[in-house]
Each structure stands twice: as structure tokens, then as C-alpha cells.
């Protein structure tokens, strides 16, 4: 197992970090009218990052999950308001697992944005499929679809199997995390294409495991950024004539942030490595990383906000954006209890 990034992976990180430093405009989404940062999305597409794990013959980069995790860490650090997680992770992973060749090239190129419609508990969305005139139509809805407000292509998991639809009535939702949209989708005799597979539920499990790793990468990037900004602040903010970082109460909290960051990164490196090199180990590694990293990110974001004092509670400061992103990430896949139950179930299988 390789838990340390190689030179190329480190270069990828520098490239993405530089791109985001130059082009990320999270406030255009938080304070403005944009639903996402379309210019940044184009830049990501030009670098081939939107199709990172898509096979080369379908227009992707044919890279691995370790590389995609590196990119997601940077996106998470920067709170980049782009539909990468919905499109380049959830939709792409499902379509790759289902062997799609029709939609993947457009998603890989970033020309279209994909989203995944499942139930909030990661079961089938309340959607029914009917065969009509040799094709299929969908009826029903999906209540919380990540980036469903900006997506062009919907990958739908229903009790009748997997479908792709390019049309839906969407209602953008107001979200806890202002940097990542969600929408309610409604289908009414909406034409769809069926994606055949022997075991639809197994595909969902695989998608969910890979999504757990991808989300952990975003979270690890977020923790690292919270640590960095908090430590910088503790060095310059003076109270009682001393930098606050020299006080043990602040210094020790920063040390705990560092310890959390290092351990979360270790779990992530292993899970991403397993996604590429040891698929048997992936389910346990993926569940483990979410159990640790979900609450860890939220605790880190809350601690970072607290250590900034009053300024941390203001709208102008980004601390609240990390706080909201962290809580939203923790709850996305059914919440912490669900994550614990999932890991406990997988541990039953090992010991």
C-alpha cells in the first residue's frame, strides 16, 4: 500500500491549487446570483479534470482515484463552487460502472453536467419506469439531488433499475451549504434510457463507496485549510500583549486540529489507494474514512471558527462557509448514525 503521493501526484496538486488560487470565486455564488462558478468549471474541463477517472477511449484521462482525491482535496480546500462532486464523481462513477458510452464523453469533457438521483437514504428514488413504444419513461420525483439545480443529465436509480434522463422539472432548494446547490427533481412521463446491469443494487454500493472516498477527500482538504487559516490567524492576532497562538488554550486546540488533519488524511490515502489497487478492501476502507472524517471535519470547522473569535462569526469571514460545508458533508449520505451502522455491518463481515 502506498500512502505517500508520488512526484506526478504532487505536481497535479500544485497545478490545481494554482488554478483555484487564480480563478476560484466562491463569493460570486455565496453573495451573488450565480448558481455555480461556470468560468472555473470550464478551466477544470480544459485541464481534463472533469473526466479524470473516465477511460481514455471515452474521452477521459484514464487516471485513478488517488489522483481524483488529490483534485477533490484542492476543491474542498477552496470550497470551489462547481458541480464536480455531482458530475465528475457521482454521475461518472455510476455510468462507468454501468458501462455507458453515450453520455460519458460529454461529462468527461465538462460539456454537460451530470447528477445522481437516489433517495436521501441512498436507496431507490421514488421513481417508476414504464416501457412505452420501445423506449422508457420515468414518473415520480427525487427530493435532494446534489447539483440537480445545474445538471443537464440525470442518472436515476429506481426500484426498476438504472436510467439516464436529460429532462426533469427542477426546483432549486435553499441549502445549508451555500456553495453547493441541491434540487428537487420531478419526472412526468419523461423519456429515459435504461442502463442494463445484472445487479443494480451492487452498482449503487460501488458508487456509494467511491463517493465516500471522494467526499472524504473534500473533507480532508477542508480540514487542512481550516488548520492553515486558523494557525495563521493565531500567529498575528494579539491579545493581552501576546499573539494568541502562544497561549496553551489556543495552541493546544491548533495541535488537535493538526492531529485530526493528519489522521484523516491517512485514512483517505488508504481508501483512495484501495479504490485503485485493492477493490476487496474498498468497502471497509470507505466506510471507515467517513466515520472518522465526517465528524472530524465538522469539529475542525467549529473549532477553527471559535478560535477566530468574533470575526469568525461574521458573514465576511469564510469560517462559516467551512462550518456549513462540513455539516452538510457529514449529513449528505444519511447522517452519522447511518455511517456508523454501515461500518458496523461491514466489521461484522471481517471479524
Amino acid at each position, binding site marked *: 500500500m502506498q500512502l505517500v503521493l508520488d512526484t506526478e501526484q504532487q505536481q497535479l496538486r500544485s497545478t490545481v491549487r494554482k488554478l483555484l488560487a487564480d480563478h476560484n470565486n466562491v463569493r460570486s455564488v455565496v453573495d451573488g446570483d450565480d448558481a455555480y462558478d461556470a468560468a472555473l468549471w470550464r478551466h477544470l474541463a480544459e485541464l481534463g479534470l472533469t473526466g479524470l477517472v473516465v477511460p481514455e477511449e471515452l474521452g477521459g484521462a484514464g487516471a485513478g482515484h488517488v489522483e481524483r482525491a488529490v483534485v477533490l482535496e484542492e476543491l474542498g480546500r477552496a470550497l470551489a463552487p462547481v458541480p464536480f462532486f455531482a458530475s465528475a464523481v457521482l454521475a461518472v462513477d455510476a455510468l462507468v460502472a454501468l458501462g455507458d458510452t453515450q453520455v460519458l464523453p460529454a461529462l468527461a469533457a465538462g460539456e454537460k453536467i451530470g447528477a445522481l438521483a437516489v433517495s436521501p437514504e441512498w436507496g431507490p428514488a421514488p421513481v417508476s419506469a414504464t416501457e412505452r413504444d420501445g423506449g422508457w419513461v420515468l414518473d415520480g420525483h427525487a427530493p435532494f439531488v446534489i447539483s440537480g439545480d445545474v445538471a443537464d443529465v440525470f442518472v436515476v436509480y429506481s426500484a426498476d433499475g438504472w436510467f439516464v434522463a436529460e429532462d426533469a422539472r427542477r426546483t432549486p432548494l435553499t441549502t445549508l451549504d451555500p456553495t453547493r446547490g441541491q434540487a428537487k427533481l420531478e419526472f412526468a412521463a419523461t423519456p429515459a434510457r435504461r442502463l442494463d446491469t445484472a445487479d443494480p443494487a451492487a452498482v449503487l454500493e460501488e458508487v456509494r463507496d467511491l463517493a465516500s472516498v471522494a467526499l472524504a477527500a473534500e473533507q480532508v482538504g477542508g480540514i487542512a485549510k481550516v488548520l492553515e487559516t486558523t494557525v495563521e490567524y493565531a500567529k498575528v492576532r494579539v491579545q493581552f500583549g501576546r499573539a494568541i497562538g502562544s497561549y496553551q488554550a489556543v495552541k493546544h486546540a491548533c495541535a488537535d486540529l493538526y492531529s485530526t488533519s*493528519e489522521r484523516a488524511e491517512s485514512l483517505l490515502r488508504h481508501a483512495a489507494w484501495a479504490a485503485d489497487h485493492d477493490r476487496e478492501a474498498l468497502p471497509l476502507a470507505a466506510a471507515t474514512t467517513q466515520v472518522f472524517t465526517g465528524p472530524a471535519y465538522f469539529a475542525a470547522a467549529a473549532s477553527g471558527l471559535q478560535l477566530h473569535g468574533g470575526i469568525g462569526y461574521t458573514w465576511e469571514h469564510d469560517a462559516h462557509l467551512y462550518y456549513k460545508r462540513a455539516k452538510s458533508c457529514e449529513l449528505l449520505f444519511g447522517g452519522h448514525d447511518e455511517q456508523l*451502522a454501515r*461500518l*458496523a455491518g461491514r466489521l461484522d463481515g471481517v471479524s
Partner: protein
Amino acid sequence: MSEFREKVRAWLAENVPGDEELATAKRFQAALYDAGLAGITWPKEFGGQGLTSAEQQVFDQESARYDLPNSVFRIGMGMCGPTILDLGTPEQKARYIPPLLRGDEIWCQLFSEPGAGSDVASLQTRAVRDGDEWVVNGQKVWTTVAHLADFGALLARTDPDVPKHQGLTMFLIDMHDPAVTVRPLKDMTGRAPFNEVYFENLRLPADAVLGQVGQGWLAAVTMLGHERVSIGGFVRKRHDPLAHANLAETARRYGRDADPVVRAELAKLYAAERALALFNVRLRQEAEAGSPPGARGSVAKLAGAQLQQQAVAVAGLIAGPRATAWEPGDAAGEELALAINQTPSSSIAGGTDQIQRTIIGDRILGLPREPVVDRDVPFRELRVGTQRPA
């Protein structure tokens, strides 16, 4: 007289019924050495195997299935040996490393004093030069395995006229010297794994110095770095009652394995255990790629102590009243009680959790240090509560 002493010593060593555990430890370590499995990453010229951390990791994984009986060598293998390899002369390495690896000689680390725990640099054991020799007087405390040790790494003050960190020197000493007195100290588990050690005019040759005279703090920091990795970087052993796998088994045995709270806490514990284990793998892989862990060992030490506390909490959740009383000879009850009672030591020994956090804050994160009043003051002039007249 010294000839007679040698005779008495040799006969007693040969004939007094030994501590069976100690004899077993030595036999086992010697067998490991003969099999080419001791000092896996240590240099070949001093008896090591000259292999990589990959082989060490394989050994750790495989040996974690067993309760290896050689823990008495832990301080020598984990701290003193690596520091001698870092700072020792070729003669010191040749003299001390091979017998340590073979299990012929046991080591202890003589740092802490009654007035110098977390603030080790304020220690008062003196070593005064007398011709070519040094004469040591003073006292150490909390010295693990001193009662069994053949050698010790001693930190002593050699110059009280410079600030406290600058006047220290590290020495390698013979624990069997009659000028060394070892008194066992009972810890809160009721056992006596550590000791008080007294030096009364202990005479040391010039070549007992490890590193440079006056550079003892550097030697101590080097050793403490190894110590943190060694303590924190432990792999939970298969037999450790607090290992996740064993607690899960205990939950099954007590019929608590379907309880959702127990299941959730076990899952959290597993995640924390894995996070630390994988962090330690990363440290090793980084070291192999050329960046030594440095102060990052403090994360392993701190997280290891927290993991221990978390595991004790889960054990209590599973065992309930069974953790409070048990029948004589009930091994499971004894083990659990011992684990509960040993837990506080993991947050104290080798530097408290608070000290580890300060190290992380100062050395890794570069946060400003706390105001220090004594850094530039000659030790002799310090007004510390425990200062004793020279």
C-alpha cells in the same frame, strides 16, 4: 577486592534462580537475532539486517498476532539504540548495538527527576569533571526497567554556569556499578515497572559521553523523538484486550454485540484505530523517502493516548459491572482492570498530552512560544522551586 567481586557476581548470576520472564525474554530475543529478525532496519555492520521499513512493517503485522515476550528490550530497541546509532562513536556503536540486538543487555533511560519531569532541562543531577573522568551525583525517578537494566542513557548537568539547555551532557553508564542504587517504585496498577535511581560518586570514563559535552539537550531531543514514535507508533497487538477485534469478541461473548450503542462505539473505535495505524505507516513511508518524522511523532504519541482512553471507555460500555469485580483467577477480569488502571500512564509517560500539543504547536505549526523567563539565565542563578544547593 575487585577480583573477588567479579567471582561473586559471576557465581550469583549463574546460580541464583532467575526471573523466568527475564530469561525467556533473553532467549527469545537471541533467537530472533539468530534468525535474522532483530534490528531489521538497523545497519548490518552493527548486527542489524540493513533492510527497509517495508520488511519492518511485515514483521510488525505478523508479530502483532502474538504476545512477544521481549518487551523488556523496548527502551533499548526503541530509544537508546536508535540514539546511539544517530550520535555514537564507531566504538560506542560496536560496543553497545550488537549485544542490545542479541538480547544480551537491557537498557534504561535516565532523564526524569523529582523536580524535572516535563521540564527535563531543569534537571539537577551533576557530572563534574575530575581529570579524565566524570563524577556523577544525583537522583532520577520514573526509570522504567532500571531494576533489570545493564546500561542506561543518563542526562546530567555538566555546566551550571550556562543556561539550562546548554549545560547538559548525555552519558552511557553501567547500571551494575556499585555507585548506582535502584529502588523500585510501585505504580497505580500495583506493579513496580519503574524505579528511583541514585548516583553517589559514580565515576565515568571520558568515552562514556554520547554526542558532545554540553550537547546533551540535542541528544535528549533525538532520543525523545525516537521515544514518541516508539510509544505512539505501536501496533495494537492481537492479544491486547483493548484492540478493537478483541473488544468486538468480548461484546459477542457478553451478548452485547447487537446493542446499537455498542456497535456504534465499536465502529468509532475501529476508525480511530485505523487512522492512527495508517498515520504510522505514512510516517514510515515518508521516512523511507527521506523525510524523518521529527516532531510528527508527537501526533502518534498523542493520538495513541487518546485511542487508549477511547478503548477503555468502550470496554467499560461492553463489560458494565463485570469491570468492577471478578472471581479470583478470572484472567479476563484481571486484564480489563489492568487496562483501565494503565490508561493514565499513556497520557503522562514519555511527555504528557499537554507537552505533545505544545511540541506540535511550536515545532510543526510554528506558533509563537510561551514567554520563557529562564532561557538565557545561567542555571546556577535560576530561582526554581526545586533548585538544590550545588
